[in-house]
Each structure stands twice: as C-alpha cells, then as structure tokens.
C-alpha cells in the first residue's frame, strides 16, 4: 500500500500543503488556503482536479463562517480539504467515484480536532516567541525580533507538514478499509455526498440570516428558478442575476425605510 510512489506523493502533498497553509494566518491571507482553492490545486497536482473541486466546494460552504474572531481558533479547513482530496486522488488514481468522495468528506470531519489542537499549540508557542525576543538585553532586540518572526513562520509551516504526514497515511488506510466495505455503506456515502450541499447551504443561511425563510433566499430562489427553468440561461448568468436581485432587494428595503 505505501510504496515509494505513495511516500513521495505524501511528502509532496505535505510540503505543498505546508506552504499553502502559511496563507491561513501566518503570511498574506490572500485566501489561497481556502478549501475552494487549495483542494482543487492539490487535486490537480495529484491528477484529479475534479475531486478537489467537489471536496473544496463542500468544505468551503461548511467552514466559511467558522471565523477566527478574538482568541477563538477555528478548524484548519486547509489541512482537512487537502487531506480529503489527497486521500481521494491517491486511493482512486483514475478519478474517485462518488462514494469515495463522500467518504473523504466525512473523513475530513475527523481531522478537525487534531488540526485545532495543533493550531492552538503553535499559536501559544508563537506568542511566547515575542516574550523571548522582548527579554533579550542590549542591542540585539531587532535581530532577535526578526529571528522570532521567521521562526514563527517556520513553526506554522512545520505544523501543517507534521499534520499531513500523520493524517494522510491514516486517511489512506481508512479509505482502503472503506473500499472493502459492503456496498450498502458505499451507497450511503454516495447519498451523503448528494445531501451535503443542503447542509452546507443551511449552515451559511443560519449564520447570515435571523429567519429560517429569509426573503433574500426566496428572491434568489425565484430569480434563479425563472432564469434556469423558463429562460434556460447559463449558470454564470444565473448567478449574476441572483447577485443583482439581492442587491436590488437591499436597495428596495433601504428605500422603504
């Protein structure tokens, strides 16, 4: 199972994933670490961009409003998304079937507690770095600060690499067991994949709106329904129309006030 090709693939994913993970909090925050970007990229590197796109889109919906507010440490959705994508792509090199995609998405939920623990530890350690730089006496405080800053960056990179090295083999072993599971389990995972978008949409609606049946959701629903089912517009145009209808809805509400 873990031949040289697999070891090299795991090492490659760990290093690339570690670099992408720096974008989460340590450097830049240009959102390349978001599941919808990181997972398709990882999938593309491993030869299955579609798996990455499917997994990334679902995890994006689920974790998009898990915000790093104050001292709260959110789940590391980058590690979860890249791990799930890599497990899917390495388990089924010719293109992962839907049941495997569903299983890998479920697997990503299992990685969350580990990623949160690791993130909390590195953040605490990073906070202590500045105290250490502060404690340096004499003229070396600037040099000590620069060193602490770079050490902090490396610590975040190393944290992700270690997580990938530990989680990927475990995920691959779990996926190998799943492949041997009864067909009924595989059918369940296929259904899980189909129902997950509804849960994802519900999670975002619940966080953005105070009512269950939000008027803006209904506006978009009716607009897209007409554009798709009656006028047969292209998906990109339908999405643009829902954006415009939401904007018009806000303008109308402001005008009424």
């Amino acid at each position, binding site marked *: 199972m873990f031949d040289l090709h697999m070891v090299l693939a795991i090492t490659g994913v760990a290093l690339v994933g570690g670099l992408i993970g720096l974008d989460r909090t340590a450097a830049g925050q*240009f959102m390349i670490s978001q599941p919808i970007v990181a997972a398709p990229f990882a999938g593309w590197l491993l030869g299955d961009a579609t798996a990455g796109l499917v997994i990334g889109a679902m995890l994006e919906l689920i974790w998009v409003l898990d915000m790093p507010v104050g001292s709260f440490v959110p789940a590391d959705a980058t590690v979860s998304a890249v791990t799930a994508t890599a497990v899917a792509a390495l388990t089924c090199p010719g293109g992962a079937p*839907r049941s495997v995609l569903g299983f890998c998405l479920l697997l990503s939920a299992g990685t969350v507690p580990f990623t949160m623990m690791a993130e909390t530890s590195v953040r605490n350690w990073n906070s202590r770095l500045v105290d250490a730089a502060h404690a340096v006496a004499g003229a070396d405080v600037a040099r000590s600060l620069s060193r602490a800053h770079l050490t902090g960056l490396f610590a975040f990179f190393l944290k992700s690499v270690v997580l990938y090295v530990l989680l990927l083999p475990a995920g691959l072993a779990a996926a190998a067991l799943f492949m041997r599971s009864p067909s009924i389990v595989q059918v369940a995972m296929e259904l899980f994949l189909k129902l997950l*978008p509804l*849960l994802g949409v519900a999670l975002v609606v619940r966080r953005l709106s105070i009512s269950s049946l939000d008027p803006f959701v209904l506006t978009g629903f009716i607009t897209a329904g007409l554009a798709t089912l009656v006028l047969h517009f292209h998906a990109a145009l339908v999405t643009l129309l829902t954006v415009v209808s939401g904007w018009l809805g806000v303008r109308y509400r402001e005008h009424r006030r």
Partner: protein
Amino acid sequence: MQSLGFSYALLPVLQKLYPDRAEFEARLRLHMEYFNTQPYLASFILGAVARLEEDRAAGRASASAIDAVGLKSALMAPLGALGDSFFWGALKPLAAVIAVALVMAGVWWAPILFLVLYNLWHVGLRMSVLFWGYHSSGDAMALMERYSFTRMARLFKAISLSVLGGVLAGISGWRPEFGPNLPLPGPVVALAALTGTMLLVSVLRRGGSPIKLMLGLALFCLALAYAGVV
C-alpha cells in the same frame, strides 16, 4: 497574538526614525506589547503608528497628543470587531457562495473567480487603509465614514443569501456528483431542496457544530441505505 508581526513590520520605520540605538530599542520594545486585531485593518493602525512615530521623532507631537502605543490599544478592539464582521462575516462568504454556486453548476474556473473577487476588495482596501491611517493619524471615525463597512457588510450578506437561494433553485442542473437524479420535474425538486434546507436551518437554530451535523447526516444516510430506501 499579532505583536510579533506588527513590530516586525514597523522595524524599518523605527530604524529610520531613531538613529539613536537606545531610543530605537525603547520604542521597539513598546511596540512588542500585546496586540491583536483584524489582520487587514491592522494596516490602518500600522499607517497611523508610523505617522505618530514620525511626528514624535521630528518633535512635532504636542504633549496632549495620543502616543502611538496608546492609539494601538484604543483601536485594536473596535477595528477588530469591525474587520471581523466585514471581511470574515460578509466579504469572504460572498466570494465563497458565488464560487460554490458556479462549482455546483460545473464551472471549473470558479476558484479563480473566488480569488479575484476576494482579493480585489481585500488588497485594495488593505493598501488604501494603510495610507488612510498614515494621512489621518489614526482617525477611526473618518475611516468608518469613508468606507461604511457596516452598510457594505449588510449588502454582501443579503447578496450571499440571494445567491444561495439561486443555488437551491438550480438543483436540477448541479454537477453529476451532487445531482439528485430523481424522476420528478425540476421545479418540484427545487422546492423540495428549499423546504429541506429551511428545515435544516430550523434544526441548526437549536445548536450543533458542523462536525456533529456532518456525522449526523452520515448516520442518517447509513440508516436510509440499511432500510433499503436508496
């Protein structure tokens, strides 16, 4: 939390302003104290602190003027709350739901659009507030007036919800991995998706983390499979 990065970013400014080694070190140590805010709006504070340090070094600061360290302490909490609700709570969800809507419809370049949509705002605002902080010497009221983050956040949230409604309406055209494949007319499937989602929202209002909900959904699917419903 962010004091390491903040003081590192300020290092070249302080080195230039304070040629005297002892004074430079004293100022640097002051900026290494606790600092935590929304990382993008930290640019505003960084610009303002650079300006106040410049005034101080040039002897332009009056005795009553607020010190750079005091300004940091005063601004980090309100700007943190403002930035969190705008960038994390409104802009990121908007870019994400638009990209997800396109992925669901089979558009492969959706991740690129996500990056463009988000970073046009993010990079533009980050650069802009850095210089605004410098020119206004940290006038946060003027910042809020100029950018009206709260109003934009409301608008972005409403548009996100509208796009999500559109995602549910287009369920018949979802990519094959998610497509329902039910022998029912498109409008009926779309209405069922809307009803199901609204029921899930009602359930979510009673609490539950995303992990627990994913596990619950997986168990529900297993139960359906064992019962022979699918």
